[in-house]
């Protein structure tokens, strides 16, 4: 059995009792990567030398150090900057960015908590994509069936955890990029409330939507990790100055009297019957646990996709202006002047999807179109946010599927941007409203692919989201199943 079958807390106990060493944990990770990453392709860069040296150092302190993540190996999505460790955001533009100058705040927190960074995880280029096929490197695959996508954009982060390469990882979520791959890979992924976790050092995609969050095998591990990375940061003025509760203390298993809202729009047209059934079974489970549920309406849901693509692309067109070929990253060769340097460096460094979104965003913000597209989308965003606030006046959580279907085949949707975008219709509204949402495993399709249950909470109420997710998880055994990758069970 893999050591990573144990929870983070159990691993820590074993380290404290000197039953296992940090070196053993780190080697477990690298061995599993050697065994399966040729197929899964979850990692873009490995931190082998530094991780091994750190393990030796930490083993000397073993038993005498109560740092929160002491000795626990983690994978980090490649849009989170790591000092001295290559950070590419899945883009060729940054393929030579070997020596970032500082650590993201979340990385500082991981380092302070003495976790060991194993490597950087594959993703759709600049987090734009739902399948990992927009990674400009070999795209990550779904560990349950490598003919299928792991989801995106944090596909590497979810696949690495599902494949047992690392026990936990960090992803980022702008329109579903943590929850959708977590659902496709059968793991637990949380997008925290907007402002809960510092984004300093996260390579920005859409600043009014981006959040960093944990991907884990269990709800408990997820809560444990969020406790470490959440909180206000002077370096990110959009991080909220709100106290961070002990999320693990919310995991009581008790959901008696919990009031669940089920939006009819989330089980409507386009949602696969297998997914609907899995969600309906989950609602039955909640009834048995003493919770109640009612059907509600989030009437503006169908406008979320348009709103999201206009706003996120507009913000991306501004954020990605920093990739100019002057200070770091790609610079085109044999250019005659500076303008040509900008244009060709960007043309050569960016992939098609990134170009398409920069184009859409630049158009939506351009003179004469701003009011019709950008401002209109911001107004509709208000209506979507109001829908959520109204439901939360009466209910504790909103429950529905994470995605309309289980994972799709590699190559199936890549030629058609609109079909690809539709994968995110159930996760996008959560980012627009800025509320927290989690995906937990709630079943498998006939083809053996995981299905995710999405639980959405009020602003800064991750505790209730975790409590609801944990109670369901403990009453079921979907989270205990593993893909049969690499011959042996992970």
């Amino acid at each position, binding site marked *: 059995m893999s050591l990573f079958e144990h929870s983070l807390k159990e691993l820590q106990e074993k380290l404290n009792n000197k039953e296992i060493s940090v070196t053993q944990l780190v080697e477990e990770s690298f061995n599993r990567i050697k065994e399966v990453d040729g197929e899964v392709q979850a990692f873009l860069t490995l931190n082998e030398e530094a991780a091994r040296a750190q393990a030796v150092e930490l083993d000397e302190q073993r038993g005498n150090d109560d740092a929160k993540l002491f000795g626990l190996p983690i994978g980090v999505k490649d849009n989170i900057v790591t000092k001295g460790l290559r950070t590419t955001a899945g883009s060729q533009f940054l393929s030579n*960015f*070997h*020596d*970032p*100058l*500082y650590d993201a705040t979340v990385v500082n927190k991981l380092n302070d908590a003495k976790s060991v960074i194993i490597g950087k995880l594959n993703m759709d280029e600049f987090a734009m994509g739902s399948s990992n096929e927009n990674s400009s490197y070999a795209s990550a695959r779904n560990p349950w069936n490598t003919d299928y996508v792991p989801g995106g954009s944090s596909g590497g982060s979810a696949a690495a955890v599902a494949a047992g390469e690392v026990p936990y990882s960090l992803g980022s979520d702008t329109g579903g990029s943590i929850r959708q791959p977590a659902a496709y890979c059968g793991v637990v992924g949380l997008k925290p409330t*907007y*402002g809960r976790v510092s984004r300093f050092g996260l390579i920005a995609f859409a600043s*009014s939507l981006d959040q960093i969050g944990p991907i884990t095998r269990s709800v408990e591990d997820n809560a444990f990790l969020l406790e470490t990375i959440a909180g206000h940061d*002077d370096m990110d*003025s*959009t991080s*909220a100055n709100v106290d961070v509760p002990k999320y693990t203390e919310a995991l009581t298993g008790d959901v008696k009297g919990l009031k669940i809202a089920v939006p009819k729009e989330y089980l409507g047209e386009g949602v696969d019957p297998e997914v609907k059934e899995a969600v309906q079974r989950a609602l039955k489970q909640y009834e048995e646990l003493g919770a109640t549920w009612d059907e509600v309406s989030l009437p503006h849901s169908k*406008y979320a*996709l*348009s*709103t999201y*693509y*206009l706003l996120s692309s507009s913000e991306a*067109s501004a954020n990605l*202006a920093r990739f100019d*070929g*002057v*200070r*770091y*990253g*790609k*610079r085109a060769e044999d*250019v*005659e*002047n*500076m*303008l*040509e*340097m*900008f*244009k060709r460096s*960007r*043309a050569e460094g960016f992939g098609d999807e990134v*170009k*398409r979104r*920069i*184009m*859409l965003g*630049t*158009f939506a913000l*351009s003179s004469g179109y701003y009011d019709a597209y950008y401002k*209109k*989308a*911001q*107004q*509709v*965003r*208000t*209506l979507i*946010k109001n829908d959520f606030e109204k439901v939360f006046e009466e209910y504790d959580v909103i429950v529905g599927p994470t995605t309309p279907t289980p994972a799709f085949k590699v190559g199936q949707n890549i030629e058609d*941007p*609109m079909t690809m975008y539709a994968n995110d219709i159930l996760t996008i509204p959560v980012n627009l409203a*800025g509320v927290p949402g989690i995906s937990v495993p709630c079943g498998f399709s006939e083809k053996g692919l995981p299905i995710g249950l999405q639980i959405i909470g009020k*602003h800064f109420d991750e505790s209730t989201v975790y409590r609801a997710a944990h109670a369901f998880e403990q009453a079921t055994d979907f989270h205990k199943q593993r893909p049969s990758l690499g011959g042996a069970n992970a």
Partner: protein
Amino acid sequence: MSRISKDEVKHVANLARLAITEEEADTFTKQLDDIITYAEQLNELDTEGVEPTTHVLDLKNVLRKDEPKKWIEQEEALKNAPEHQDGQFKVPSVLE
């Protein structure tokens, strides 16, 4: 009627500082037109008087003390640069 012409696509590409080929201009014209046409469903909604949301948190003018502190050294700042000279980033000529 198409929402965006090929000439507009070329104009937008120039604003976005992206070199594009004729072929890419054709593809983007079609794809952006599809996306914009879809996005125009927002016009079904009356948003007269609706306050735009730029940001979901009620944060305004977050300020900190303007105090100098040690951060990145000049030498470090240059180490990822494609080209530098005399402690500065080097770029091709700006003016013809």
